């Protein structure tokens, strides 16, 4: 038996792959910039910006979901995830990176380009004439939008950094009873701050600002939770992919199918939760049948987005429901990998129709540009997560909950 490796070393194959993906992404970004980004056709430009927007928002939110997972398990005193804790920690180091990209793109859209095809509420003349937009203008204005976005991304990064720094203490040396208690308490404080801020941003305002305001007349109280569920279930899938990868490479000695089973339960449960929100949002609007509410669904259910809209339900609800239901599947590395990839793809498509469905209503074709930009973000994600994993030991050796996690049994 080969000795267990404690310290992650980035394999050269992974380096090559992430570089190739980033290169593909950069090339398609440049090509997109030339063909769409600087074109005189306003619609092409909106499509270019929209593609960048839904990709950065999606990838940033699923990386942020990792930090949410850590904080939620910390608050719930959930010890089982301790042995795999370094994986979501490493993924969450991407929040500042992707956050900066998101911020730059949003600043470009709102301030520099002032793109009214993306955000119609940016146009002062329209807002003046429109009673509904006038009523919302206290909230939907560039100043509030940007300040809130900067605050959101900044505090996610800051509190995430604090959580990761606290976690480094568990590598230093054994803790006695009082130190351990104090450590748990400090973790709890930071985690609760993060959770509260998370509720004020991801679970409410940020999806309103970034995505719901693409259709400024339309509103839905389900929207933010829907976005959160989407990002959390893909975040759990991403964690499971990394855990399986590391396990296959001979790392994470204490993680076994018991821990994978619990991650699988999260993927299963939150797929159902996502569907619950999807359906609650859809059914009430379908039943009420009021024009100002159906405007969001009209072209998605009957128009160009019909295929993507219903494929979404099959990938994100029917497949997880039927495949992940069995206990044996959640403990099977191959099937879990397949389901994780499928769920991430499904929710990426979901974000695509949420954003592009409002910017470009008549055409739903996924082009090379969509996949190119996605590959840029996947490449960055692999590169930075690998680097973050290599910085620390993979097992928090002196964590107070480590034993609970090792003997974890579902």
């Amino acid at each position, binding site marked *: 038996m080969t000795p267990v490796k404690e310290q992650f070393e980035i394999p050269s194959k992974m380096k090559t792959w992430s570089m190739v993906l980033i290169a593909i992404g950069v090339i398609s970004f440049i090509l997109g910039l030339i063909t769409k980004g600087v074109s005189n056709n306003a619609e092409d430009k909106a499509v270019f910006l929209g593609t960048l927007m839904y990709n950065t928002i999606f990838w940033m939110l699923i990386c942020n979901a990792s930090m949410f997972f850590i904080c939620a398990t910390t608050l719930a005193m959930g010890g089982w995830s301790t042995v795999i804790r370094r994986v979501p920690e490493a993924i969450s180091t991407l929040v500042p990176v992707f956050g900066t990209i998101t911020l730059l793109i949003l600043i470009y859209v709102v301030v520099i380009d002032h793109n009214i095809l993306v955000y119609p509420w940016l146009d002062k003349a329209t807002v003046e004439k429109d009673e509904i937009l006038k009523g919302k203008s206290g909230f939907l204005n560039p100043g509030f939008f940007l300040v809130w976005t900067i605050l959101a991304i900044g505090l996610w990064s800051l509190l995430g950094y604090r959580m990761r720094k606290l976690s480094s203490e568990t590598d230093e040396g054994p803790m006695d009873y009082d130190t351990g208690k104090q450590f748990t308490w400090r973790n709890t404080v930071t985690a609760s701050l993060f959770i509260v801020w998370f509720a004020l941003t991801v679970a409410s305002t940020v999806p309103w600002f970034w995505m719901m305001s693409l259709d400024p007349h339309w509103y839905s109280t389900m929207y933010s939770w829907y976005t959160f569920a989407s990002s959390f279930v893909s975040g759990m899938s991403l964690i499971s992919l990394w855990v399986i990868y590391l396990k296959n490479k001979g790392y994470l000695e204490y993680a076994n199918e018991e821990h994978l089973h619990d991650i699988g339960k999260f993927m299963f449960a939150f797929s159902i939760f996502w569907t619950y929100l999807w*359906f609650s949002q*859809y*059914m009430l609007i*379908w*039943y009420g049948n009021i024009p100002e509410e159906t405007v969001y669904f009209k072209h998605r259910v009957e128009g160009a987005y019909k295929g993507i809209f219903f494929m979404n339900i099959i990938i994100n609800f029917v497949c997880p429901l039927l495949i992940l*239901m069995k*206990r044996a599947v959640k403990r099977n590395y191959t099937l879990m990998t397949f389901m994780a990839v499928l769920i991430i793809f499904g929710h990426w498509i979901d974000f695509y129709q949420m954003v592009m469905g409002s910017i470009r209503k008549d055409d739903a074709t996924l082009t090379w540009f969509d996949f190119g930009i996605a590959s840029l973000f996947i490449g960055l994600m692999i590169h930075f997560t690998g680097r973050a994993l290599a910085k620390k030991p993979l097992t928090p050796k002196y964590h107070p909950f480590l034993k609970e996690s090792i003997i974890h*049994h579902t």
Partner: protein
Amino acid sequence: MAKKKFVVASFDDEKVLFPAVKKVRLSGYKIHDVYTPYPVHGLDHALGLRETSLHTAGFIYGISGTTIALGGMGWVFTTDWPLNIGGKPHFPLPAFIPITFETTVLLSAVGMVLTFCYLCQLAPFVKKHHFSLRATDDLFVMVIECTSKTNVDDLQSFLSNAGAVDVNVQEAEAGWWLGTYDKDQVLLKEQPAV
């Protein structure tokens, strides 16, 4: 119904119980059941019990619920008595989903409870034999079924050596109230009285 003979061993510690279960199984005795005050993690693995089929039953009940609700409402509103409700289509799927969901949950929940009672031989009119009342308080009670070949004295000393704090012999009806569960009567008739 026929009575069977059981050797009942009580343990006061999980750490003693697990090796004892292993030893008893290795020696070829048949463990009838282990009664514990609370669910003990890993005991089902130690006992070598097969995975329950309760969830498969639950899935089947759930699917039946879905089918009954969708089929029933679909038939009523399209074929039997079509009504025009607010100009909605006659088969408005979104409006049917909540009821379908409720029926699915109802059937699977009720069905699983009843199946669970059947599997555990529980019903209002069934009187269960308690091997040791302290199994609901502070003792882990292992019950071993005796066959014609079992040497009861040997078994008792074997269990005492394995760490049991109390060993005794009891006769009890192990069966099921309809008598379908306990067909093993031949063995008992051959067994000499002790």
